[in-house]
Each structure stands twice: as structure tokens, then as C-alpha cells.
């Protein structure tokens, strides 16, 4: 005896949902894509147009102001190395993509994190969504990104935002929820409104935790930007992708090491800022 159990047409359902969404929203998203794409390209072109040594020095100075001279020196040396490898243009493409995606991820993620911390019900909705965003293989986001945003940088940006945002949301919510209860009570006892409590007590105290989330978001963004090369995002990921297609191991490793260097630089800078904020709070 055999029962025919019909297969659940999950793939078809997803297609139907996506087709419907594409039909109704792609006009808007394509327009957005045009604007953001132009912005990304213009920025990248502008930076590429400048003499590399000038950009490197400017970055070094900025990092020095934000952190320490050691990290600034590391940044300058790291960038000089990438320039030397003739990966300067690809590095800038990746960097711009990472920074733009991160900016969007923070702009969307931090408010969601705050809302999740303030409303238990909202957290119950957001929580599983975050789990799904993080466990879904990142490649999958690339497929629907194309009909909405077309091939290129903006699709890569979209997929990166979706993939890199969860840590910011989670750690923002966590940071706020971890405010010591006696401080919340003190704020209440002095008659603080909900918003006063949030902006004067909870958020400032959560900043080190939020910065840890920002650090993770940047790292995830970098890893996704590499994968996004598959849909034409270019950058250092594009170098890796080309090396794979041509089976050029040396070229592949060279681009891979370049990504590691970029990752280390970004990580050191954000770690230092996060750490510094935590120490600030304890010592003044």
C-alpha cells in the first residue's frame, strides 16, 4: 500500500508572493535603486578619482582622531598594502558598499531594537524574524533582490542590510533591557516620562552594547559584500569571484587576504570605540 502524499508547493508559494510583490512594488524599488545606485557610484568614483595617498592619509587622520595613533598607523599601512597590490579601486568599492549598508542597517535596526525593548509584544514578532534572517543562507537574499533592484550595487546593498542588521537590533534591545533595574526605578521615582527614561538613562547606558552590535554588523556586512559579488557588486569580492571562475588560486588568495586586512582595520576601529565608551562610563 502506498499513500501519495502531495508535496507542499512551498517554492511555488514563495514565487507567487515574490511575483506579486515585484509586480506591485518593483516600480518604487527600481526608482530607489536608481537613486541609491547613483549615489554609491558617484561616491566610489569620486574616491577613486582622488590620489590614493591623499585618501589614505585622510583616513589615517580620521582614525587617529577617533582612536589611537597605533590603529591609525595600522590603517595607513593596511591601505598602502592594498594599494600596492593594485586592489585600490576594488577596496574602495567594497568599503563604500560596507559603509552605506551599515548606515542603512543602523538607521533601520536601532529604532527597531528600541521598539523591541519597549514592547514585549513587538519583540515576540521581531524575534523569530531575526532568527530567520540570520539562519537563512545569505545567498538566498540575492535572488529576490535582483527583480526589485536590478543587478549591481544596490541589490548587494539590500541583501547586505537584511543579512547584517540582526545583531544591531538584538544588541540594541539587549542593551536597553539590561539597564540595571534600580536605575530604572530611580528614574521613575523622580517622575521621568517614558521618553526621558529612554533618552537620558537607558540609551546612554546601552551605547557600549549597541556598539558591540555595530561592530558585528560591519563584519557581517563585509562578509556579505563579498558574496554579493555574484550579482555584480564588484569590489574585492569581484576579484575573488573572477579568480574562482578562472581557477587562479594565487589571485584568489591575494584578494582574500585583502579582505582580511580590510576586516581587521574595520574591526579594530569599531572595537576600540566600543571599548572606549565602556571605559568612559566607569572612569569618567
Amino acid at each position, binding site marked *: 500500500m502506498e499513500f501519495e502524499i502531495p508535496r507542499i508547493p512551498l517554492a511555488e508559494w514563495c514565487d507567487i508572493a515574490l511575483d506579486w510583490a515585484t509586480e506591485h512594488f518593483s516600480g518604487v524599488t527600481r526608482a530607489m535603486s536608481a537613486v541609491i545606485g547613483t549615489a554609491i557610484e558617484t561616491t566610489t568614483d569620486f574616491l577613486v578619482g582622488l590620489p590614493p595617498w591623499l585618501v589614505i592619509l585622510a583616513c589615517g587622520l580620521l582614525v587617529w582622531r577617533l582612536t589611537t595613533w597605533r590603529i591609525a598607523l595600522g590603517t595607513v599601512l593596511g591601505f598602502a598594502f592594498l594599494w600596492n597590490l593594485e586592489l585600490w579601486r576594488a577596496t574602495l568599492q567594497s568599503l563604500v558598499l560596507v559603509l552605506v549598508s551599515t548606515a542603512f542597517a543602523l538607521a533601520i535596526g536601532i529604532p527597531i531594537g528600541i521598539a523591541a525593548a519597549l514592547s514585549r509584544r513587538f519583540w515576540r514578532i521581531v524575534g523569530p524574524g531575526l532568527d530567520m534572517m540570520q539562519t537563512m543562507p545569505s545567498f538566498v537574499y540575492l535572488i529576490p533582490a535582483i527583480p526589485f533592484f536590478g543587478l549591481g550595487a544596490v541589490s548587494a546593498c539590500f541583501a547586505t542590510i537584511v543579512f547584517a542588521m540582526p545583531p544591531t537590533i538584538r544588541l540594541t534591545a539587549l542593551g536597553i533591557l539590561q539597564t*540595571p533595574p*534600580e*536605575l530604572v*526605578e*530611580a*528614574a*521613575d*521615582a*523622580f*517622575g*521621568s*516620562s517614558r521618553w*526621558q527614561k529612554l533618552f*537620558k*538613562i537607558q540609551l*546612554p*547606558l546601552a551605547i557600549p552594547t549597541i556598539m558591540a552590535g555595530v561592530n558585528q554588523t560591519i563584519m557581517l556586512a563585509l562578509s556579505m559584500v563579498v558574496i554579493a559579488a555574484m550579482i555584480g557588486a564588484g569590489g574585492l569580492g569581484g576579484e575573488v569571484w573572477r579568480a574562482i571562475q578562472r581557477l587562479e588560486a594565487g589571485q584568489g588568495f591575494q584578494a582574500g587576504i585583502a579582505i582580511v586586512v580590510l576586516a581587521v582595520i574595520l574591526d579594530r576601529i569599531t572595537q576600540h570605540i566600543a571599548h572606549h565608551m565602556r571605559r568612559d*562610563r*566607569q*572612569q*569618567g
Partner: protein
Amino acid sequence: MSEKKPRIRVRGLTKIFGDEQHAALPLLQAGKNRDEVQKATGAVIGLQDVSFDVAEGEILVVMGLSGSGKSTCLRCINRLIEPTAGSVHIDDTDVTALGERDLMELRRTRFGMVFQQFALFPHRTILRNVEYGLEVQGVPQAARRDKAMAAIETVGLKGWDQHFPSQLSGGMQQRAGLARALALDPDVLLMDEAFSALDPLIRRDMQQELVALQKRLKKTIVFVSHDLDEAIALGGRIVLMKDGRVVQQGTAADFLANPADEYVRRFVEHIDVLGVVTAGDAMRPPMAVRPWQSSAAEALEILTQSGEPVMTVVCELGRFQGTVDADTLRRAGATELRLLLSDRDASVPRGATLNEAVARLASGRGEIAVTGPDGALLGVIANADLIAALARRRVETAH
């Protein structure tokens, strides 16, 4: 008698924790006890029918061991914990009936709160901590800065305003906590075990300073404490709680003299009697007292018969003037007593503790006078009376 209207009136305050509080309340009101209600509904009784008044300008100590409900009780006054039943009035405002907005306003203007673990905001300087209440009220920066600086000076932290809480010792942090509450110039200070986390010596200093501050600023203070010595040092009335109920209220001396039950008796067992019992409690009528125009010879006869160590001398109005000892009387013959007086300051007011009486006795000639507010002689305490008073307490408490 001019009875002042109480600043805070707490009536029938009941707090039941847990989701079952509305099922539990009728049971409790029907006279079931705490354990029965908990067994039947799973709800935990935090407070049960607590009532007391706090007069304007009084320090009321709510005392009890941990789990007695004293902190819950304090938090029900400004509704950091929402009471299940009962009412709290501050002057004519029914705190328990206020909406969210009015409650916020009330907390901003009428209450200052000080916490056991200080609860200073670690990311703000001392100044910005002390300003907090004013900032929340929307007071402009210059005005709130002035008020905050004044409060910082009041608690003796001048010069520390730009430091962060973690740079200060525990005692200093709690001074900052007190300044934060005082900066608002509230009518009522709620203090939750405010000095319990401090070292004993610093704790004692802070208690004394609070009493001094209170005399000057005339705040109404509700002070939660588990420490009987602290309650005595603060010198006010005490509400003693156990298992969420009030066991007895009154002064420490009342507890000692008339304990409501065995629990109160045991609670005050190790009390420092000298610090609680007043001279008025320990005095007895003088056996040898003469007006100052009497002659020495007459006084000597009375003194010898009485067995008192010295002759106590009063003026026409019955005010204490000093003492004369037997040797002086013997040598003086017919001289008036007023010319022989010594130890003019061998007296204590009726409300003074035995500690003060002991100090006077030690520097005098074996007997001191106890006087009323206008200096009138009320009674005397001799060395033997003091020892008897102490022995009596011991016998009572040792039972």
C-alpha cells in the same frame, strides 16, 4: 492640644503579588491569613492592612527584618509599586487615585527618594545626577545648575560635582544620592535603607547629619531600616512591621516599656537602654529639696534624714538652682542656701536619654536634677536610681 494634620496618611494598604491578586484579596479581607491565601491562590501577600500617619516635619522609621514588607510599603507611597487595596494621601491628594500624568507630576515635585544601593546614574557626573530631577521637570539649565550646586554643598560634596559616581566612596555616593533628592526641594523624602550599605562609622555620621539636616530643612521623612539602633539614632517614631503587617508603632521607649507581643519584646531585647530610656522615665521625686532662702541648718537636718547625697535647691518658682552638700551645710550654720550653691548645671531635661544623664552624673556629686521645659524641678536621679533603672530593664527583657 493643637494636633497637626498629618502630611502623609496611609490607610489599609494591601499589596498582593502575583496574577491571582484579585482572587486573593477577598479571601484576605474575609480574614484568612497569609499562608492560607497563598495556599489557596498562589498569590504572595506583601502588605496587609497597613495604616499609619506621618506628621509634617517628622522622621518616621518603618522598621522590620527582610521580607517584612517595609520596602514594599515605602514604594507604595509613591506608587513605584502599585498597591492592591488601601489608600495613600499626601496632604489632600489621594495618591492612589492619580492618573499616570498626575502621578508623574507628583513624583517630580513632592517626593525625593534615596536608595540603598545609591542608584546614581553611572554615565552622569555628580552634578548631572543631582540635576536629574530638575532636568526632568524642565527647569532651565542655569536655574537647575544653581539649585544642584546648592544641594551638593548642603551634603558636603562641594568640589566633587564634576566627578563620576564610580570615583566616589560609598559614603560620598550616598551623599550625592541625598543631594539628588534634596535638589528638588521636595516636601517628603523617602529613604530606602539609605545607610545600610555604608560602613558602620560612616553610617553613624550620616545618621547624625540627616538629623541635623532635618532640623534645618524640616522635611517629612519616611525612612526604611532593618536596624533598631539606626531607628533610635534618627530619634523619631517607629512603625515595626512583620510579615507585611504593622506589629506596633511608637517610640523605641514605648516598645521597651509596653511591647505589643513577644516579637516586639525580642526585637528590643538587645536595645541600648541608655540610648532609649529618658531621664523622665528614670527619675523619682526628690527627698531633700528646699527653696533657696532656707537656712543651711534647716536644710542639713532634712538632708541627713532623707539619705540623699546632696540637698537640691530651687527658687520661688520651683526652678532648679543647684545643689549643696552636707559638709558645706555643716560649716555654714544659718547662711541662706542661695549663697552656698554649687553644681548649678547638674541637671538634664526630661527628654534627655540616660546616656546624657550618665555623663552628668559622672562629673557631679552623685545626684542630678531632671527639669521641665522652663527649668522647673521635676525629679532627681541618683547613682543608685540609674543602676536600679538598668537592672529593672534587664530583668524585664531577660524574663
